[in-house]
């Protein structure tokens, strides 16, 4: 119990402290320490859940099972590495005069608050609080997206706020409908929105209401996942915000929103006894993969390019969870992990590359390998990893998803294969000259943080070659829970 409270309290305390001292010279270090303590607490929680199984805490207010505990660990880990990356990154931005002291304070405080909302969304047992936490996550990041106050960043933040706000309002209606159906079985009061309670009576919930609820929930949370055609906010928010924010948006927020969808899907599927929820998720997932793959080749901005790649990968994961079954769910959970690690690593590398080149335009960044071999290799390896080249982990999960699709949903396989091929051609042809072309860039005033990049890539490589037995067991349990 104490672990759950620590995981939630530490980022909250961090946010409060950084709201006061966030502009000082040592604030980035405080940010790192707060994230590191959260990671330790999350590790303790994980160890406990692994050895003692699922647990309910504080009068069923919080619920930890293998499915969310791995996301908690991942969130805390990427939160920590991103804080390591943001330390030099934000210092360089400050030295380049892009930011004032006040905005740096805003960044640090909101960064911790964002981590808090993510962890709250993952740990809560109450579907209503889940909604509140996801909306709070939007609110915490909207001012981060507009941190530079450029016209484009303001537009991106406005779009993000309004689209996600409207989307999440749909999810609220879905939650109301869910409560409406649950109230009949469980009686009025707080108990009727607790996921564990809902899960125990999921077969008795009214199927018509739940189908309608799922449409609203999928559209609502799907907006945050970035599913096509609700993805418009995503590339703008990723491209215009500071790079650490892009890294956590792609690496964490999208996962957590998808987590919400999957939690709902478990209930709806058991209630309706039809493949309605599955088909809906597969449809949205496939559409996202295909549309994002085609849009990839038209991108001129490096951060937008990888934002579209996030849409594509979220589509793949949604499709995998839509198919369901032990193997597809296993692959979906694995893909969430490797995508999160790889994409944040790429954004770290891209962040320093854009600082070196002084532009985010793909044409403006050339020859990283001669100027800064480490950044060059980081970007090249990251791009290969995200494109699903063996032996990286993304290959393993995509391979599992594709083979399951061939067996269960053969009609979808050609679309997936073509989309993956197009994505490969688009991303590779754009990244290759950035790494190997004629150099043009300048020196950075602070040493770039490349340790997180290589740690992430090493982890992804390891997951591709060998998944530790306890982790595999963990994923298997999570896959069984999702059904």
């Amino acid at each position: 119990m104490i672990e759950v409270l620590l995981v939630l309290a530490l980022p909250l305390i961090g946010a409060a402290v950084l709201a006061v001292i966030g502009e000082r010279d040592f604030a980035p270090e405080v940010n790192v320490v707060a994230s590191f303590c959260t990671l330790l607490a999350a590790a303790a929680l994980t160890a406990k859940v692994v050895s003692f199984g699922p647990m309910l805490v504080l009068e069923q207010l919080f619920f930890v099972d293998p499915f969310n505990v791995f996301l908690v660990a991942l969130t805390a880990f990427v939160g920590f590495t991103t804080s390591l990356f943001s330390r030099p990154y934000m210092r360089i931005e400050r030295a380049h005069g892009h930011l004032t002291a006040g905005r740096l304070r805003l960044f640090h405080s909101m960064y911790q608050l964002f981590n808090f909302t993510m962890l709250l969304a993952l740990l809560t047992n109450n579907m209503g609080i889940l909604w509140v936490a996801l909306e709070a996550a939007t609110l915490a990041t909207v001012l981060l997206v507009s941190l530079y106050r450029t016209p484009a960043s303001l537009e991106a933040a406005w779009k993000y706020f309004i689209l996600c706000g409207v989307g999440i309002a749909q999810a609220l209606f879905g939650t109301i409908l869910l409560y409406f159906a649950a109230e009949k079985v469980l009686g009025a009061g707080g108990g009727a929105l607790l996921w564990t309670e809902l899960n125990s009576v999921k077969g008795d919930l009214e199927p018509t209401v739940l189908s309608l609820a799922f449409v609203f929930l999928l559209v609502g949370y799907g907006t945050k996942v970035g599913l096509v055609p609700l993805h418009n906010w995503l590339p703008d928010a990723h491209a215009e915000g500071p790079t650490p924010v892009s890294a956590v948006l792609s690496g964490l927020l999208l996962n957590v929103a998808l987590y919400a969808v999957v939690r709902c899907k478990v209930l709806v599927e058991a209630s309706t006894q039809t493949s309605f929820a599955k088909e809906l998720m597969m449809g949205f997932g496939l559409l996202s993969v295909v549309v994002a793959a085609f849009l990839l080749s038209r991108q001129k901005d490096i951060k937008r390019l990888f934002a579209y790649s996030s849409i594509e990968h979220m589509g793949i994961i949604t499709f995998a969870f839509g198919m369901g079954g032990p193997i597809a769910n296993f692959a979906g959970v694995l893909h969430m992990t490797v995508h999160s690690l790889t994409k944040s690593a790429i954004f770290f590398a891209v962040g320093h590359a854009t600082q070196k080149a002084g532009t985010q335009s793909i044409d403006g960044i050339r020859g990283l390998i001669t100027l800064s071999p480490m950044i060059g290799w980081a970007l090249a390896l990251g791009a290969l990893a995200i494109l699903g080249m063996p032996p990286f982990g993304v290959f393993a999960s995509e391979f599992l998803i594709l083979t399951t699709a061939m067996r269960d949903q053969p009609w979808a396989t050609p679309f997936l294969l073509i989309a993956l091929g197009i994505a490969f051609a688009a991303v590779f042809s754009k990244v290759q000259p950035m790494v190997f072309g004629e150099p043009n860039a300048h020196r950075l005033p602070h040493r770039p943080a490349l340790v997180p990049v290589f740690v992430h890539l090493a982890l992804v490589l390891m997951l591709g070659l060998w998944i530790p037995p306890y982790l595999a067991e963990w994923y298997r349990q999570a896959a069984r829970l999702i059904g």
Partner: protein
Amino acid sequence: MAGVPLYAQFINLFAAILLLIAFAMLAQRRVLTLIDLFAAQGLALAISTGVVAYGTSQPHLYFSTALTLLLKVALLPWILHRLIRRLDVRWEFEGLINIPTTMLIGIVLVVFAFNLALPISQLASTVTRSTLGIAMASVMLSFLMMITRRKAIPQVIGFLAMENGLFFAATSATYGMPMVVELGIALDVLVGMLILGVFFFQIREQFDSLDLQHLEKLKE
């Protein structure tokens, strides 16, 4: 209306008022009047929640009533008025589509909403179930308002009005959500409003106007 208790008739009355105000907001060009209409809608919502609380003896709904009065009738309109004064914007604005067309689309949406709500309200056991259609209709009308308006503040008012409709849906279908959730939603709305306030100043500082046409540079 034999067999329908008096308080239920009152709820229907206020539901109708809610819908009428949603239409009035759709047709309103002046931003100050729009804020007043939003406050009036909040009031209708609060009274109907209060009547539901009284009629069905749901004590926690009194709390929701108080929350609605405080937040949507007093605090948010006050913040919006202050913002308007500080930003010194008092323009009348044109929507993307002219008003009569918008109203016609609105009517179609209401019919659609009633159809969509029909299967659910048949399942509901609450006395207020007939108002679920109205709740959905006002959500959709607010949505329409957000789509057709170009300026930042009317879009936000549309957003808040949508939240009113959702709240009304929660009361009419289930006698309100659990308290902790309602508090969380209220907190999110309030914080969101404050952030938007900051945001308006940023947009104004950057573009010298709150016209969202400036915010149409990012494509794909």
